[in-house]
């Protein structure tokens, strides 16, 4: 399916809202196996996105994604800033030629892999992005599928990101970046329908 500017705007707005409402949850998850700031980081990004979008309405999908990417790159920092930033920037570039949703999310997942030198099963946000890209490719996405992807990170042992320092002890906790990515794709489901 094609992603329209209108749908994408609703998607990003809903994501921003979810992050702002759940930043404490993200901090708690990150306190367990990271350094406790993922919510604060993402909240800074969410606010920057709102501000950028309120200043100037994007004229097309690519511009929307680029504005969102720049807000994340310039305001989030940490690991999640460059990861979300790279994903969205790569998606923005791709959207100039192709507005197929499944293809775009795959481009985003690939951007994260490149920037993070990582892949699936490392207990990172990729473990949400890649299954979601696959599901979209297969034709549909539901909140249950998003939740399943998120929950799959619980028992994983982290081999990338801060949680990897805990080795085996990283198992038994959800990955915070996967939780924020789950918010992203739950918002997508809201917009495109389950």
């Amino acid at each position, binding site marked *: 399916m094609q992603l329209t500017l209108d749908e994408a705007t609703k998607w990003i707005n809903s994501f921003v809202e979810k992050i702002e409402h759940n930043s404490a949850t993200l*901090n708690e998850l990150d*306190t367990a196996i*990271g*350094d*406790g*700031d993922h*919510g*604060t*980081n993402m909240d*800074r990004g969410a606010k920057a996105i709102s501000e950028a979008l309120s200043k100037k309405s994007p004229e097309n999908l690519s511009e929307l994604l680029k504005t969102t990417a720049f807000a994340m*790159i*310039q*305001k*989030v*920092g*940490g*690991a*999640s*800033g*460059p*990861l979300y*930033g*790279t994903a969205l920037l790569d998606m923005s570039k791709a959207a100039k030629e192709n507005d197929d949703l499944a293809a775009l999310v795959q481009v985003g997942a690939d951007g994260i892999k490149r*920037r*993070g030198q990582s892949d699936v099963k490392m207990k990172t946000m990729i473990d949400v992005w890649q299954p979601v890209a696959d599901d979209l490719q297969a034709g549909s996405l539901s909140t249950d599928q998003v939740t399943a992807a998120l929950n799959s990170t619980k028992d994983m042992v982290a*081999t*990338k*990101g*801060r949680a*990897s*320092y*805990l*080795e085996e*002890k990283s198992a038994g906790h959800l990955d915070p970046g996967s939780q924020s990515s789950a918010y992203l794709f739950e918002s997508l489901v809201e917009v495109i329908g389950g």
Partner: protein
Amino acid sequence: MKKIINNVENIVPEMVSGLVRSNSDLVEEIPGTTAVVRADAKFASADQVGIVSGGGSGHEPLHAGFVGDGMLSAAVAGEVFTSPTPDQIYEAIKAVDKGKGVLLIVKNYSGDVMNFDMAKEMAEAEDIKIGTVIVDDDISVENSEFTQGKRGVAGTVLVEKILGAAARAGKSLEDLVNLGKSVINNTKTIGIALKAATVPAVGHPGFDLKDDEIEFGIGIHNERGYSVEKIQPSKQLSEELVAKIIDEFDDKTGKFAVLINGMGGTPLMEQYIFANDTFDNLKAKNIDVGYSRVGNMVTSLDMVGISLTIMKVEPQWIDWLNEPATTIAW
């Protein structure tokens, strides 16, 4: 949580502003950022490779406290425990480039590595030569191809001192990258915590330790360590760290540099007692200490704890460590 702050969002800009205002002869803010750059008279005419470091805040005096003649050219402060963003790092790079290129000293955390990497891409697009060294001195974490690798912790300050002195001495960017890699390969650290740090946005310590417990192998962002043990006398704490670290050096001859680093909430008194025991323990292992330093250099907010760094040094490195540097905190 009780902290002397105003509001959590403004911690970093207010801190950087306080630092710059109380040291205006040494550093200034790069406008629109929370990065600081040398402001001393010598800087304008300094014809050397620029050195930029940075990372999340909460490790003060690292890095801004080490900006000055003979050490860093600029330092970029991210949010608390959060890597700074690429645009800020890029501004710092531009502020210090004198045409000889800029060396980035990065602690090995995925966030820092990625953000500095993006900044490097931005600078290279503007034809600025960039070299990067990644400090990964924390031997409490296993190093393998399948993991993030070892963390960058207190040894960073010794790396910054040696590279800063070498850059002042006129070394090229390429030489500095090679020197940096060699220094980092010879730098090993382990930290212990008696109490975890309280991240202001979180409001409580990052993990709990009982009244008689101590955690071995912690990182500088409240990362848990490799084991929780009962509290022991300083002598034994030091013995365990010294043994673990010295074990990692294949060649135990020659000179070594030692850094005993307070994590923020541990008084100098205890750091000196630990230093005294460490000198004894190193002597017992016939380790020849050629340079030593004690103090709060690479902290973790109000964490109560200490880290021990040992570096196998070449004679020239000792000279570089001993050379004066005109910074706030060296």
